[in-house]
Structure formats: structure tokens, C-alpha cells
């Protein structure tokens, strides 16, 4: 670079400008960069700013700086702690329910050859269906008096449940529906991962006298490492960002009482019901911290150091 005179640089520039690749690349990436700056990067940067000012909706330029006051207010706000508790419980129960079930169903799917596509087709069906429709559907099925689920429970002698209408069961009812809906998504990923494990691994284990359980625990699960890590990260992100179901399913959003009040709902309500934009964005950042920390920890703990 050092020995180049200005005329050399001009020559290089001229060569670049004459290349058709340069113009095509510019035509493709130019709009992309403008769009990302406008609708992705600058909203993120503006979020940082909004969290530390008292946002004035009509005169944004005159919003006074308040520092960390929103965060201090949050910590004294009881609904904030309720929403954190519900969100973490939601993500944890969703995780604990989903991972074993999805791995089990995938193992079943991998071990049958005939009918696999048919089963996959049907189990994946709830994934494609609109979440609002599913929420309404289960709101009907879970009606304590008229709902089909209680009728079925009664007919086999299990005591009926209050489901969405009771404080104790509402959150778990929503989680249960979510597991039912999302199961097929994770099953498809895990099944693909399991089918990707070379057959020789199983043959070698069989020769060594490993039974079906041993093959599952010693071959399938360890070799599934990368896929399992991905699924695990996706499941947690899914659980922490629940919103639609807790708006549509209970009698009022987040209800009954605050039983299903989650962080996304707090962000939404603070912003568009109470019009406290800065406060809402500060809440969103706390959610971000949870998502980020849990994801990083998972990647550190779970990510295998090998590949095949």
C-alpha cells in the first residue's frame, strides 16, 4: 500500500468500477444495507436510548435523560417480578416437558421404516396451524364444564380440572397446549439428526452386544450432540418469548389475576396501554439479558467439541 501513488489508486478504483460484479453487488447489497440500518440497527440503537430517557411521544427530541431510573422502578414493581417468575417457570416447564417427549417420539420415528412419512405428516400438522386458532380451539376444549378434555377425563375416572380458569393450573394449561403445538417442529429436526447418524455406529454397538437401551444412551444421544444443542437453544428461546397464547387463552390477557402474566405481555402493556415507552423498553432489555445469558450458558455446556 505504501508505495502507491494517488494515480495508482485511481487506476485500481477505475478497474473496480469497470467490473460488472461491483455494480451487481452494489445493486444487491445497497438496498440491503439501507434497509438493515433503517429497520434493524437503528431501532436497536434507539432502544438503548429509549431505556434511559423519559420518552416524550410528541416531542421525542426533548425527552429528558433519566439514567437507570426505569430499571430501579422495575425492581420495585411487583408485576415485573410476577412476570419474570411466570416467564422462567414457563420456559423451564416447557423445556422439561418438551425435550424428553421430542427425543422419545423421534427415537420411535427413527426405528420404524414403514409409515414414517405419514406419522411425521400428522405430528407436524399443529405446527403449521395459526396460533390464535389453536388458542381458541383449546380454550373451548378446556372449558371446565363443557370442554371435551374434562368429559374424557371424567369418562376414565380422572377428576376434572379447572384448567385456564384457575390460578394454579392456568400457566401449566397454556404450556401444555404449547407443547402439543410445537412438538412436531422439534421432532422433525431431531429425527433428521438421528437418521444422519451413520448406520455403522449401530452395527458396531450391536456386535459389541449393546441392547436397544444401551444403543440409545451410548450411541444415539451422544452422537446427536449438535442437533440436541440447537433444539435446546430453540426451545428456551421459544419459552421465554411466549405472547400470543397468554393474550388469547385466558379470560383476560395474563389472567386469571396475573397467573399467566409474562414478560412480553408486560412490555406490550406498558408500551401500548400505559404509553410508557421507555419503561417498556427497559423491561424488554431485561428479557434480552435472560435470553442472552441462558443461550450462552447452554452453548458453553452443551456444544460438543467434535464432529463427524
Amino acid at each position, binding site marked *: 500500500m505504501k508505495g502507491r501513488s494517488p494515480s495508482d489508486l485511481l487506476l485500481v478504483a477505475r478497474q473496480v468500477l469497470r467490473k460488472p460484479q461491483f455494480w451487481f453487488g452494489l445493486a444487491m447489497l445497497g438496498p440491503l444495507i439501507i434497509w438493515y440500518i433503517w429497520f434493524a440497527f437503528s431501532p436497536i440503537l434507539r432502544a438503548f436510548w429509549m431505556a434511559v430517557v423519559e420518552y416524550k411521544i410528541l416531542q421525542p427530541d426533548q425527552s429528558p435523560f433519566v439514567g437507570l431510573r426505569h430499571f430501579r422502578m422495575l425492581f420495585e414493581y411487583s408485576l415485573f417480578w410476577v412476570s419474570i417468575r411466570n416467564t422462567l417457570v414457563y420456559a423451564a416447564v416447557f423445556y422439561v416437558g418438551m425435550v424428553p417427549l421430542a427425543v422419545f417420539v423421534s427415537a420411535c420415528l427413527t426405528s*420404524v421404516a414403514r409409515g414414517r412419512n405419514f*406419522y411425521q405428516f400428522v405430528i*407436524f*400438522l399443529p405446527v403449521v396451524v395459526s396460533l390464535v386458532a389453536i388458542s*381458541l380451539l383449546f380454550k*373451548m376444549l378446556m372449558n371446565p364444564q363443557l370442554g371435551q378434555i374434562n368429559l374424557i377425563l371424567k369418562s376414565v375416572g380422572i377428576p376434572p380440572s379447572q384448567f385456564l380458569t384457575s390460578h394454579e393450573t392456568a400457566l401449566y394449561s397454556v404450556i401444555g397446549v404449547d407443547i402439543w403445538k410445537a412438538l412436531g417442529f422439534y421432532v422433525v429436526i431431531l429425527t433428521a439428526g438421528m437418521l444422519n447418524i451413520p448406520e455403522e455406529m449401530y452395527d458396531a454397538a450391536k456386535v459389541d452386544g449393546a441392547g436397544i437401551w444401551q444403543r440409545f444412551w451410548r450411541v444415539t444421544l451422544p452422537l446427536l450432540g449438535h442437533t440436541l444443542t440447537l433444539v435446546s437453544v430453540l426451545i428456551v428461546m421459544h419459552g421465554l418469548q411466549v405472547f*400470543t397464547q397468554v393474550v388469547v387463552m385466558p379470560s383476560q390477557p395474563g389472567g386469571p389475576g396475573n397467573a399467566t402474566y409474562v414478560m*412480553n405481555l408486560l412490555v406490550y402493556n406498558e*408500551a401500548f396501554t400505559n404509553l410508557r415507552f421507555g419503561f417498556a423498553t427497559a423491561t424488554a432489555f431485561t428479557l434480552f439479558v435472560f435470553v442472552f445469558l441462558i443461550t450462552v450458558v447452554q452453548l458453553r455446556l452443551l456444544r460438543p467439541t467434535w464432529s463427524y
Partner: protein
Amino acid sequence: MAALLEQIRVAVIHAILLAIAFTSVMPFVWMFFGSFKSYVELTSGESLVPQAWTVDNYRAIIFRANFPQAFWNSTIVSLVVTGCVVLTSAAAAYVFAKYRFWGKEQLFIVILSTMMVPFAVVLVPLYVTIADIGLNNKLGGVIVPVLFSTFGIFLMRQFLEGIPSDLIDAGRIDGASEWWIFSRIIIPLSTAPMAALAVFTFLFNWDNFLWPLVVLTSPQSQTLPLVLAGLRSLYWERYDMWAAGSMLTVAPVMLLYAVAQKQFIRGITMTGLKA
């Protein structure tokens, strides 16, 4: 003996899978039949299949709850966004996969990093951005923030890296223009991931709830999920109406799924294995 045990094992696994498949599909069957029942029969009847079929629910809902307008709005949003996302993702991915320029990887990482940020963080600032350009309460306000898809660019780049560069070089030697190479070589070779991406994008936008809820406030501009959620208060506890409304929302997606099942499954598998 061993063969018999193996047969029993296979039979048990099939039974388990059948039970799960049954659980997955049964609620929809109930909803389908329920939408053709009268309110009295739906809430009291023991039988799954309606004793007296009726289309009154559908008639009431179409004429009173603004469904045709919402259907149209959802169709416009989903189709426009799907078309744009597939094109922009393929074009950007091609440049990222096959061009060499200063700062390429850094730019790619910065773009990817936006996927880490939960949507809640940008909910308010993005609303302010959209309101500033006058798109709040317009379909454009739902369309513009999703014209590019980070996930789509990532997915397409993974695929395009696998296409040999020799093909592109051969085209250049023959004097083909960059646009010709992109539209006649790259696009035809990547129909599989593009179809998968299209299906996903369509579905996501057909079902999206949070962002349209923020942007679209007047009934005339609302999309299907919003109108459907509104049935809760419009028809309080009227399960017959809810079932009919849900069927109207779900039917197009189920049709699409029945036709494009392979693309759905392949799309998920591709992302799962490459990550």
C-alpha cells in the same frame, strides 16, 4: 423367539406413534365438525359428527365479523412479503456466498447478530420508526419491517456455498452478464431451498400476531389472526362461531401444507443439520 420379540417391539412403537398422531389430529377433527353444529348441539351434544349440519355459523361470521376483508389483508401481506423475502434472500445470499470484497464476513456477522435480539426490544422503537414514515395502521407497516429476512439470507447462503463456482466462471467467460448468471444459473439451481423459505415466510406472516396487533388498529386494516382473536369479545363464549372462524383461518394453511408438505419438512431439516 427373537423374531417374535422384534415383531412385538415394532408393534408397540407403531401403537405409540399412532396414539401421538391421533392426539395431534383429533382437536382439528372436533373443530371441523363443531363448526357445522348449532350452538345448542355443540355445547350439549355427545356425538362428534353433527346430527343436523348447518352453515349458519359461517354465514353469520362472514357477514358480521369482517372476515372477507381480513382474509384479503392477510393474503396481500403474506404474498407480498413472501415474494420479496425469497428474492432479497437469494440475491443477498448469492453475493455473500460467491463474491469477495473487503469486510464481507464482518458485515455478515453483524447482520446475523440481529437474530439474537428478542423482538420485544425493538417493539417500541420500530413502532416509532413506522409511525414516523406514516405507515401505522396501514398494511405497509406490517410488510416493510420484514422485507428482508436474516434467517432467509443465512439459509440461502448455506445452500449457495455448495454450488460450484466453476459454473459461474464458465458463464462469465461466455460473456454472460451478472444478472443473467443470477437469474438463469443460480435461481434454477436453488429452487428447493427457495421453496422451503417461501413456505416458511408465508406461514409466519399468515400467523403473525404481535406486530400486526401493534400496527393495525382499525378493523378495516386488520389481518385474520387479529379478527379471529376479536371473536372472543364479539361473540362471547359462542363456541360455534369460534369454530367456524378458526376453520376459515386454518383452511388455507392446511391446504398449503397438504400440497407442500415436503418443503416444510425439508426446510426445517436443512436449518437443523447445517447449524
